[in-house]
């Protein structure tokens, strides 16, 4: 026997994203997609589903994909010492750590800065495509994937902070000076854009598609 799952949207109710109050949309408005519906308790805008969720997520995601290339190719850091000048990309920074024997740190930075952003981009793309094709494939797995993406995304900012501290500390005119490179901007933008993409995506769409094919 299949359990009867009733969603708030199916029951004609709206739930507040800020305070979680479930309310009935005002009778005057037609349908529950009214753009003016506000939560009676806290006044936040309430929508059955985040407005234009898919279009917005795609926009942030595509921008992130485009910037992903300069973020990894351009140097995020320039080191100039008396003897030479050196430019570091994200990956060369990891390789440096690995070679200098800090394997644990190298691994942390590699996962945070290289694996996570790419995995996040691919995961969000997969989620968007699955919603677009109204896939009913394992909503639990996809819901968990979305949760993981939202949880882990912030840690990609790690390298930006590493560069920030290095830039501030290594200002030793007679030994070495570190400055931030153009890659830092691109990389920061990728992290912010993927965070925005994750916020714009509405996980309820996963279950909507799964439901539609169930009936």
């Amino acid at each position: 026997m299949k359990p009867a799952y009733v969603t708030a949207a199916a029951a004609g109710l709206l739930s507040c994203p800020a305070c979680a109050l479930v309310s009935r949309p005002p009778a005057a408005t037609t349908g529950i997609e009214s753009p003016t519906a506000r939560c009676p308790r806290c006044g936040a805008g309430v929508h059955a589903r985040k407005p234009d969720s898919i279009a917005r997520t795609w926009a942030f995601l595509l921008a992130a994909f485009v910037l992903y290339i300069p973020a990894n190719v351009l140097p995020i850091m320039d080191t100039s010492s008396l003897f030479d000048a050196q430019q570091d990309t994200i990956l060369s920074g990891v390789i440096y750590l690995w070679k200098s024997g800090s394997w644990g740190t190298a691994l942390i930075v590699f996962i945070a800065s290289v694996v996570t952003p790419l995995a996040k981009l691919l995961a969000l793309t997969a989620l968007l495509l699955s919603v677009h094709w109204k896939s009913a494939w394992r909503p639990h797995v996809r819901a968990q994937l979305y949760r993981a993406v939202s949880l882990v995304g912030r840690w990609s900012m790690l390298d930006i902070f590493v560069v920030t501290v290095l830039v501030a500390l290594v200002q030793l005119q007679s030994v070495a000076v570190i400055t931030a490179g153009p890659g830092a901007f691109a990389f920061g933008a990728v992290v912010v854009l993927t965070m925005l993409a994750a916020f714009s995506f509405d996980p309820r769409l996963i279950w909507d598609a799964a439901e539609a094919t169930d009936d």
Partner: protein
Amino acid sequence: MLAARRMDNCRTRSLQRDAQTSIPKRNNAMPEAPLIACPECDLLQVETPLPPRRTACCRRCGVALYRSSSDSLDRALAFALAAVVLLVIANSLPIAGLEVTGQHTETTLWGAVQALYDQDRVAVAGLVFATTLFAPAVELALMLYMLVPLRLGRVPRHLSLAFRLAPLAHEWGLVDVFMLGVVVSLIKLGNLATVVPGIALWSFGVLILLLTAVGASFDAREFWLRAAANRAALDRAAGGTRERALEPAT
């Protein structure tokens, strides 16, 4: 069959999480108990009281829905007050120092932001400032703005606005990531120079714990209950004085 497995998942994911919610039957009249809709899958469920220190999670997708209420608002306020002190300390002392061939440099968080700014990395400087200084400060300010008057039996003017902005500030505060960034950069420099971890580094560690504690103990349901209770009490008091004022005239 599937539903049973899912509920088991829900229970086994964490001992603290118990599925205490039930699903309203289709074609039924609206039940008396308050309804709650899952923020992740929109499933409607009936809210039921929980034993202390438990979390209810969604029957279908397993996400945490609500916790049993307690004195959480007072705890959130205490943590927020402590966090303000730590935020000030963490930002007024150097995070770390560096010593190479007799030269010594050290930096505060603000100094690091300024170094980026001076190198014309304005956007990156802005990003670091926004996520490590501005967002936590705003979050704590909003918490105090909401919780201090509520504690004193009043209701702040822009309660709803503050309530909606606080999670946003929480989401963009990346103090924990910054802390890891400092540690990684000190490890990087450790090969080349003598690094001296500053007092602010430890302060940031404590600040992270306090910010997490504020977020974890702030309970939205209890918050709105307290606001409603304060409002009702204030209305009663206002009504009472009006009646008394009218009495001599009649």
